């Protein structure tokens, strides 16, 4: 019953999607569904099939087999109806550089049939929210990569899309721009927009997404919530530690319960199956070596480790 409710709440339904380019099977039997108002993360290494899947979901590419339904409409049969409800933010901020941000947004809005008077007000609001209102009449060619990406986002938000597809929206941006774009994504979710996000940034997916699919070599390797994925792969934890002075080389790897030691900056990340016992041994080690802890933390399985495990298994 619960499962039935979940299916009926799905706004994006993908069934057995397949796409082959010559001999290469880019996407192989990919199926998943995205619930309404959910942020769905789509992760995968380069060449895993993320962009091909995204292009099939947004109607840019016809699948060899399988179907994509968005809000009940089959994108292959009713591409125009579906596209009216979508917003797409490609990886490269592909806006018209000869136009100003306002002209770009006006053009985008008019493609969706929005009246010019309505678009102008909404465009100005979006530009203000994205912090580029002052530059609204400057040609985009003078903008930095981050500013162009903000204009691209504004173009995708102008039609009050029900589903927003974002392809690596924060790739290559500075910390402030990344933070702002993540905030905008969360705001869009609050207003009822469903968000499909492809990203390389695992921390970003961990922070934003309610559900994550990991794709590798064209196949879905896992789909679940970030916490469930971490739980499934929780074979080992790590203890992160730093001392007031460097311990003798290789001494940490001799400590009992230690599986693996990795130096990260001024800290050591020690993988273990039993973090509580390891901490006791570390305390004895510090006392013996006459060194003091400056930092000690137990780390759970990270999403990055889950990702690496899944994508390396596929190789």
């Amino acid at each position, binding site marked *: 019953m619960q499962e039935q409710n979940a299916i009926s709440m799905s706004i994006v339904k993908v069934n057995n999607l397949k796409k082959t380019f010559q001999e290469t099977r880019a996407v192989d039997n990919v199926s998943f569904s995205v619930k309404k108002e959910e942020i769905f993360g789509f992760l995968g290494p380069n060449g895993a099939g993320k962009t091909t899947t995204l292009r099939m979901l947004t109607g*840019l*590419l016809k699948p060899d087999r399988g179907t994509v339904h968005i809000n009940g409409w089959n994108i292959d049969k009713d591409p*125009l109806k579906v596209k009216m409800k979508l917003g*797409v933010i490609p990886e490269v901020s592909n*806006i*018209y*550089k000869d136009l100003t941000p306002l002209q770009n947004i006006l*053009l985008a809005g008019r*493609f969706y049939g929005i009246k010019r008077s309505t678009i102008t007000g909404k465009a100005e609001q979006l530009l203000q929210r994205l912090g580029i209102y002052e530059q609204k009449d400057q040609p985009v060619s003078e903008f930095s990569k981050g500013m162009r990406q903000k204009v691209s986002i504004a173009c995708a938000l102008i039609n009050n899309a029900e589903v927003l597809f974002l392809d690596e929206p924060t790739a290559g941006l500075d910390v402030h721009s990344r933070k702002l774009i993540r905030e905008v994504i969360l705001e869009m979710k609050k207003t009822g927009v469903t968000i499909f996000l492809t990203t390389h940034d695992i921390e970003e997916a961990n922070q934003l997404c309610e559900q994550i699919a990991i794709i590798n070599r064209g196949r879905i390797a896992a789909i679940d919530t970030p916490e469930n994925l971490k739980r499934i792969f929780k074979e080992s934890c790590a203890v992160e530690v730093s001392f007031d002075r460097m311990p003798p080389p290789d001494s940490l790897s001799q400590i009992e319960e230690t599986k693996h030691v990795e130096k990260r900056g001024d800290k050591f990340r020690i993988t273990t199956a039993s973090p509580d016992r390891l901490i006791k041994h570390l305390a004895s080690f510090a006392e013996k070596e006459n060194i003091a802890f400056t930092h000690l933390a137990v780390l759970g399985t990270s999403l990055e480790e889950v990702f690496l495990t899944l994508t390396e298994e596929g190789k």
Partner: protein
Amino acid sequence: MSYTILARSTFLVTEKNIRIYYNKPPVIIFGLLFPFFLFLSFFMGRELDLFFFFPGLLAMSLFFTSSSVGPLITPWEKQAGTYERLLSYPVTINTIIMGDILAGMMFGICINILVTLVGLIYFTYPLQLLIFIPALFLGSFCFSTLGVLLASPAVRSPSQVMMFSSLIRFPLIFISGIFIPLNELGEVARALSYISPVTYFVDLLNYSLTGQHHLPLLMNFCALLAFSALFLSLANSFHRKNHLKGL
């Protein structure tokens, strides 16, 4: 609903192309100077009667101006990434193609109305407007469609498209009977001239300006329509096949 969306997107693609690609000083200057350079290249130093050469000059000018920017728009947009954005809007490949064609057609018509006016200032042609106007519209549509067809190879670099475009367009001019009247051409050359749409357009211009023509007027219109339909159908098919190549 779909027809409204399609009509709107065609109009917006046309407007976007004119604003971004045609309404630029270098492009307008090129359009205005091109007929003058054609005149210098093909008329000066040759014993030709300008009165009878002008329709051919106008035909060459319309052919080149209508088909000059069309081959470059898709490669430019693919290079800039804007083609992918355009495809994400409620548009189809057909509406993008039609928008590209209409923009080229309007550019060709605007430039060549000026060229015609210059011709009409110098010569007193018995202008047949009822033939001239439809010929101008149909000719520019046909040539602009050829331009958009030339944009369809799956290349990313506009320079490659330019080479390919020149390779196709120049021979079409030379076999078209602009420089030698059709009735003076040898059999092989005349047969060749029938595979160039410019031949039929020149014949229509000859009739509407000088009153002389070699082929039946209806045949000229039908041939231009048939070439337009062929170019449009090939452009649709090639663009559809190659639309993601070079992205």
